[in-house]
């Protein structure tokens, strides 16, 4: 398997559009890296540059220390798997998996060995004689992956692999892909626009927007310490709540005023606001839905962080309840215990877990406290 290095990679189109700007990343052998971001952010273009299907306008791409910029895609020892897998309808599962090797004139014995090995990894060994029409959606997807596995590539590139599947199958295939990564010990780069897929699959996630890398970190760090407003809003579902807050400094004490409530900011975050010169300025306060609490015990222990709200929508999801309300000009979501007594139209008190709040600069949208 392989390590990959991307240094100052750019993609410029002749019409002047810059699809990817100065992309830098070191991928270790056997890593499962996710490129995530909204449509048009440059994630697929970056993947295609690694594959060699798009030319690199500037920068250096290395695989195992070897410069790859002008190496033909076929010679990069990479396999791609797309969402639109077309299985050959008149061929069996075995022949579908063997096809790529046959056209490359690989020895018959070797083809048999590789297909049987891949089929075992993918739990397809009992289905090798079947035709695609006799397979379920998940099995077909596994055959498509099998076609890549039999090539024994150094790197697997997967582009929006699960986008065409229904929700249930998507969850099932996420688990399959995770298992596959463990079994193959392969370096995988996976592109998705779905942050849930990114969070559940990747060992590291690259968040992109407008062709620019916003943050590269583990799922946990991205969730708890987003570097800017975009990452904070993009990672997590329901997304982080953002409310304008006015900062006031009094000695080493700092307060944040949101609508009618004034909240005391914990010491470590207060220091960052003081050091940044935010006294008297308006910043953006971010808080995740699960860090808003309506239970009496938490409220009693957090008298300096309580806000009053009128519930607009109550949504029961079984294991949790989402409460939606408007506060200080923003729409806010709270994720609470299903035993809550709050209902639509109720006046409810919420306490913010002040250790979990985030502050962002209103102009640069960069984090102040992480």
């Amino acid at each position, binding site marked *: 398997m392989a390590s990959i290095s991307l240094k100052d990679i750019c993609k410029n189109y002749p019409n002047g559009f810059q699809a990817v700007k100065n992309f830098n990343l070191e991928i270790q052998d056997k890593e499962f890296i996710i490129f995530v971001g909204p449509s048009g952010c440059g994630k697929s273009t970056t993947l295609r540059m690694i594959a060699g299907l798009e030319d690199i306008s500037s920068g250096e791409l290395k695989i195992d220390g070897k410069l790859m910029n002008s190496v033909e895609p076929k010679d990069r020892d990479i396999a791609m798997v797309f969402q639109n897998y077309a299985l*050959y309808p008149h061929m069996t599962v075995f022949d579908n998996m063997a096809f790529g090797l046959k056209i490359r004139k690989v020895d018959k014995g070797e083809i048999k060995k590789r297909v049987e090995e891949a089929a075992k990894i993918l739990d397809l060994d009992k289905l090798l004689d079947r035709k695609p029409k006799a397979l379920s959606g998940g099995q077909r997807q596994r055959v498509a992956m099998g076609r890549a596995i039999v090539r024994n590539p150094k790197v697997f590139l997967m582009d929006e692999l699960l986008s065409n599947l229904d929700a249930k199958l998507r969850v099932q295939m996420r688990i399959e892909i995770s298992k596959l990564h463990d079994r193959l010990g392969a370096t995988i780069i996976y592109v998705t626009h779905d942050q849930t897929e990114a969070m559940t699959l990747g060992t590291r996630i690259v968040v992109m927007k407008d062709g620019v890398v916003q943050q590269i970190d583990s799922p946990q760090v991205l969730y708890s310490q987003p570097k800017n407003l975009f990452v904070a809003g993009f990672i997590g579902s329901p997304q982080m709540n953002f409310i304008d807050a006015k900062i006031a400094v009094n000695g080493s004490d700092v307060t944040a005023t949101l609508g009618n409530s004034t909240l005391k900011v914990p010491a470590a975050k207060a220091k960052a606001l003081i050091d940044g010169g935010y006294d008297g300025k308006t910043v953006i306060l971010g808080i995740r839905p699960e860090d808003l609490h309506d239970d009496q015990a938490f409220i009693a222990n957090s008298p300096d962080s309580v806000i009053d709200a009128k519930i607009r929508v109550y949504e029961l999801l079984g294991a949790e309840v989402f409460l939606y309300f408007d506060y200080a000009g923003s729409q806010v979501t709270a994720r609470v215990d299903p035993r809550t007594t709050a209902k639509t139209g109720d006046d409810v008190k919420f306490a913010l877990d002040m250790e979990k709040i985030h502050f962002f600069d209103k102009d640069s949208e960069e984090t102040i406290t992480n």
Partner: protein
Amino acid sequence: MEYEEQLLELLDELQKETGIRFSLSDNANDEHETLRKLTKLIHRYRGDRNKAFFLKEFLTEEIDDKEIKSRAKSFRINEEAPWSLIYIEFKKAYDTEAVSVLSSIYASGSDHMVEEDPKHLILLRQHKKSVTDEELSDIATNIHDTLETELMTSVKIAYDTVSSDFYGLQNSFKHAKAAMDIRNIFHLGTDVIGYHELGLGKLVYSLPKEACTEFIHDHLGDFDFEQIDSETRHTINVFFEKGLSIAETARELFVHRNTLVYRLDKLEKLTGLDIRRFSDAVTMEIALLMNELKKNNTP
């Protein structure tokens, strides 16, 4: 080229095809007619032997309607079924592997593959019933993904809406080729494109460059389009895609509403066009396309 030279060339070609040396005697035709009939004879000989050659001549309109009908019948082509055409452009000259992959997926008895030149393959598909644009788009995307996965080579695909009969394929071929040309100017980030999806690009593509220069000058004076940076260009595109909706564009771009308004204000200062107004938005979209057409070197 002189008549005598052309005649000799055609007779040589005919000999290569048939193995027989022909000569002319008692020729009642004029020179032009003689050359035309000899060319037809060569084409007919090749075409009788090779269905793909006939299909290529048919698509490029090198043979007349009567000839097409007679040969379509002789090749047992279903003239009345719905047909679709998928035009495939390879970044580098395709090889036999590409033909193998395509034949294995689609080209069964009723589908045909035509090799236009070293970089272009045409897939003609006969359907049992008419297919929607969406289904055709799925077929084209499947072909694209399969070729790129199997061959690890860059492929672009253009297609036209389904034709109600075999004869409509001549038009589909023109449309698919035009779609590829237009894609190569206005839609560089799109790998699979349908003729019906070209929007204003189709209209602007048909205009002479002088008319474009005049339009840009009338509405933007000497404005230098290089002043519109990549981020602003992307913002404009998304704003148009979202039907000039500030809220939806801000959501799509993951930016605050005020950030988007600031970008649009900046663009207005730069160009004099407030693209929140429909008429200015239309002018901006047309001017941007015209500018790209002007930058392109095709005549």
